[in-house]
């Protein structure tokens, strides 16, 4: 269903005169879940914002199906490429259904009326995110997890084949983090939506990604399957942290266990660094 190809090439961008991305290249695999990780201030958010044309690059470009997104009419682009920003703002007292229907904006024009298709899109977005029972409630009354599902519903109502999300799990309890990530995986499975998100938590990133991308110093350091990317070497290179990477018994995906200076036990190869220090 989605074969839209989103490609960043030689992307250089930043704020004011501070350059944050230095010639970043990345191809987003269509129909897959891509997760971007990296240390604070490495440029992962800037990259996502440039990818979704919130920031204009000073060099390089983002191409959607071979056409620069900065030269595509804004509304047309918004029908293919959706974005959930890190901190969207809900107007005071707005109900869930009203907020979600705002997602139809790029499908409407000055004189077009609200159609059956718009209603169906809103309904299916509410149903998919299990927020249909909340439809009449004001969004300020909802819990953090519910609210995030509503924002995702709004992005779904936009019916884009590609959905970008900037840290969709921030500020959520762990159960709600899993709920949101499961929902996005469902979406990718059932609608074939290409999902690209920035995540903070390496282990959740490795668990939910088809394609994992590690960014450091404004460039892609490594990308590939979670097994290829989440290695002890990468963690050291990208985060400057010693770690053990083992296989997660619940998912079979790699899981990273950080090695600090304290609370380490010396078993097998674990905690090499601290052993040397104490010797």
């Amino acid at each position: 269903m989605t074969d839209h190809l989103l490609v960043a090439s030689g992307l250089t961008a930043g704020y004011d005169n501070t350059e944050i991305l230095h010639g970043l290249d990345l191809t987003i695999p269509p129909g897959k879940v891509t997760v971007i990780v990296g240390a604070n201030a490495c440029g992962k958010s800037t990259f996502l914002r440039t990818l979704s044309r919130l920031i204009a690059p000073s060099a390089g470009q983002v191409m959607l199906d071979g056409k620069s997104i900065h030269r595509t009419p804004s509304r047309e682009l918004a029908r293919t490429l959706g974005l959930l920003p890190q901190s969207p703002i809900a107007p005071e007292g707005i109900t869930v259904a009203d907020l979600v229907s705002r997602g139809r904006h790029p499908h409407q024009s000055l004189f077009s009326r609200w159609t059956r298709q718009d209603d169906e899109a809103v309904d299916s977005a509410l149903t998919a995110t299990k927020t249909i029972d909340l439809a009449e409630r004001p969004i300020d009354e909802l819990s953090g997890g519910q609210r995030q599902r509503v924002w995702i519903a709004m992005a779904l109502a936009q019916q884009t084949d590609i959905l970008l999300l900037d840290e969709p799990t921030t500020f959520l309890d762990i159960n709600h983090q899993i709920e949101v990530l499961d929902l996005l995986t469902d979406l990718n499975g059932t609608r074939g939506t290409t999902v690209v998100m920035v995540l903070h938590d390496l282990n959740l990133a490795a668990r939910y990604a088809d394609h994992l991308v590690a960014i450091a110093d404004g460039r892609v350091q490594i990308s590939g399957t979670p097994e290829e990317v989440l290695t002890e070497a990468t963690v050291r290179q990208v985060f400057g942290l010693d770690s053990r990477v083992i296989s997660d018994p619940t998912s079979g995906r790699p899981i990273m266990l950080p090695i600090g200076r304290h609370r380490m036990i010396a078993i097998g190869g674990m905690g090499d660094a601290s052993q040397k220090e104490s010797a």
Partner: protein
Amino acid sequence: MTIPSSTIDGVIAHRRKSARRYRLVLAVLLTLVAAIFAVTLSVGQSITPPGDVLRVLVGEPVSGASFTVGQLRLPRAVLSILAGLCFGLGGVAFQVMLRNPLASPDIIGISSGAGAAAVFAIAVLSMNGPMVSVVAIVAGLGVALLVYGLSFRNGVAGTRLILVGIGVSAMLQSVIAYILQSAPDWNLQEAMRWLTGSVNGAQLGQALPLLLALLFFGGLLLVRGRDLETLRLGDDTAAALGTRVSQTRMLVIVAAVGLIASATAATGPIAFVAFLSGPIAGRIVRNDGSLLTPAALTGAVLVLLADYVGQHVLPGRYPVGVVTGALGAPYLIYLIVRINRIGGSL
């Protein structure tokens, strides 16, 4: 597991209910404007029977009523409605765009800029008529750019813009006061107009340029109304929904300043109408639809009603701005207290 197929009916019902409520709000506000307009025309110091009022409106000479209704009450009421619509619409456009009720043109200096320019044009340059409006619009835009420029650092933050605007506004108020002081042949009534706004001495001739400004700038705003609505979700979300944020913002600034400055040139900066209309409309409309039209109508109701109260209900006669000022000030205080506590959005 069965999936309820009726959920879409719920979605449709919700949307229809909210569209119905929105139409009801518009109808009620329109009726209110019409009713107050009718009362203003027929009940003043003396009571003119509705029949006589109608005869005057269609142009028949009626002894006594022709003057009171045709020359005094009608121009006053028409100008009140037009100015109210302009203030309400221009005010809410700024408040929605900057997501803050305090970001209203009469708080951030645009009204005082337009007012100062109008006073200068009339008292110092001896201009009159539409040229005054043009000077006021240009000055209003200049102040908007100045406030915008002064508060720009990595993009414009609402709070910084409001604080800068309040400062600029205070400065321009003193410019108005200075010009009024140094022009000796001004009477108190004229001075009051430029200090608080007034429709005293209104003439029908003032209505046409204001109507044209309303149609042009108001039309521009209504056409971009949906894009403006998306700005309420934050600039990032608006852009993600396909709104060209900076283009929309420029257009809204020009249109809203045009409305505010035109109305200010005609009636003076009627205190707090731009500031109050949006939030009042917001309380009534909730999120059932765009705030633009309801806020415009609320502005018209406010000016009509406040002028009537100032003329006939209060002991003595007060210009409309004194009444709206007395209404607006407590709300301003309430808003500042509340925003301090929870952080505000419209």
